[in-house]
């Protein structure tokens, strides 16, 4: 069997053997529900769509994705299993991809389990289900980028706490960087072109574009490239560790 899928299966199994998977699923589903109804004003808006639901996702991922990814490499470094894994016949890329896909599939499962809210909105009105599918896709892509960030930063350290804090920090920066308040703050100090370029780095902007139902190649590429980039950085970090 392919080493990528062997690593992926092992990782997925370890989520479900330890309480990580269940804790994550429960908290994700409960928070997604509560935030949508109470903070997102799902009913009061009087519109049959899932915009308030998807709007909560970046903030949920901000805390929950680093909680999943923090152990990815830090635990292996600390427990000595990294030596076992890396002396098996597989490349660093295969190990990294196996772990990444495990986490990404897992988030995919969490998203699938939010289906009651989709049923609810279809019961209450007649939403544009194409837009909802796009929203799920955008959310999953964004989760992938967050996972790649977490995977990279987990390779940086043996401490899971440090990995969690660094990942959450980078994710919050990438969410906030496109917000008007942040851009306004820097608009005096930095040239306009740079501000615009920075705004395009914003995770939120690309996610919201997809969640509105507009599938632009540039938004898809943004997520794809950020996943590849962060995973590549993680692989390089792991390789660097072997020489240090």
């Amino acid at each position, binding site marked *: *069997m392919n*080493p990528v*899928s*062997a*690593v992926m*299966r*092992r990782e997925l*199994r*370890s989520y479900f*053997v*330890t309480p990580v998977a269940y804790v994550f699923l429960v908290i994700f589903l409960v928070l997604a529900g509560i935030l949508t109804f109470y903070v997102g004003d799902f009913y009061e808006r009087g519109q049959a769509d899932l915009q308030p639901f998807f709007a909560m996702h970046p903030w949920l991922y901000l805390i929950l994705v680093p909680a999943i990814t923090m152990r990815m490499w830090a635990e292996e470094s600390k*427990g*000595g*299993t990294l*030596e*076992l894994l*890396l*002396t*098996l*016949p*597989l*490349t660093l890329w295969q190990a990294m991809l196996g772990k990444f896909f495990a986490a990404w599939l897992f988030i995919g499962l969490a998203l699938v389990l939010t289906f009651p809210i989709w049923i609810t909105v279809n019961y209450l009105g007649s939403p544009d289900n194409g837009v909802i599918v796009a929203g799920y896709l955008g959310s999953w892509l964004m989760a992938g980028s967050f996972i790649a960030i977490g995977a990279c930063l987990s390779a940086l350290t043996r401490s899971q706490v440090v990995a969690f804090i660094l990942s959450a920090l980078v994710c919050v920066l990438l969410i906030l960087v496109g917000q008007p308040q942040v851009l306004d703050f820097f608009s005096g100090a930095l040239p306009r072109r740079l501000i615009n370029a920075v705004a395009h780095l914003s995770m939120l902007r690309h996610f919201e574009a997809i969640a509105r139902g507009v599938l632009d190649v540039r938004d898809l590429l943004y997520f794809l490239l950020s996943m590849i980039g962060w995973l590549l950085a993680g692989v390089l970090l792991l390789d660097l560790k*072997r*020489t240090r």
Partner: protein
Amino acid sequence: MIETDQLTRCYGNLTAVDALSIRVEPGQVLGLLGPNGAGKSTAMRMIAGFLVPTSGTARVCGHDVSREPLKAKRALGYLPEGAPSYGEMTVREFLQFIVRMRGFKPDAGYRRFDAVVQQLQLEEVLELCIDTLSKGLRRRVGLAQAILHDPPVLMLDEPTDGLDPNQKHAVRQLIDVMARERTILISTHLLEEVHALCNRVVIIARGKLLADATPAELEARSRYHGAVSFSAPGSGMSQEMLGRLPQVAAIEVDPLDGRITVFPKPGERILGSVETLLREQGLEVSEIQLERGRLDEVFRQITTADSGAAGSPA
């Protein structure tokens, strides 16, 4: 076959492994011996492809570990120090993970899985979490992982650490059986293990190779090699007589149990003349022994000597 050529690894200013060149052939069981921190594990980690050498090369079955890492890793079974494994998995899950990682076809994989489980007597713990196992069992799981793909080259970092005498014996038998057509490199700081297992010994300290010999050759370097020791009550008189024998270099008496050790001059055999003399004196000797030499003494002598020059067999 394992070959290293001027293999060197530095951590900052510290040189953990210093220009180590060894060559282990099929059929050899090489014991890598050295005090703690001598660089044994670092050397093995480089050969296994986990650490990148600062300079020099290592080859496993002719595959350079830096240039053809996957081929080298496929030829190698490796038990890292402390036998790490995924604690939350059961023994069965863990070994099946290794089966998948080693790229077995399902049928062949199950056959090897069954064979290894039987070989290491893991049948009864297959469904237990590795975290709940004793140290000895975990070590056996680690060994099972290392030999699962029946590799031509086996490298074991302290394979019997933490095992009880029976388990040690079982592991040594296993290695003995595997040794016939394989290349085996084990690291240890147990000198008894060298006797039990190895047909060649490499001693390193501070990262440098200090000796490369067979266990017997090392023992021959000991001061005790060829010495005769015996216990005899009331032997005060005979000590003087023994000292006058032309082949005898020195005599020592153990202050605790009064056991007398007679050391020969280099190259001399003294068992016969010592026995004759004792008989002539009419001493009742309860037991007499010809010493082969003491590895621990040679080990201490080699690893604590200031000059780091590579020794040659005596």
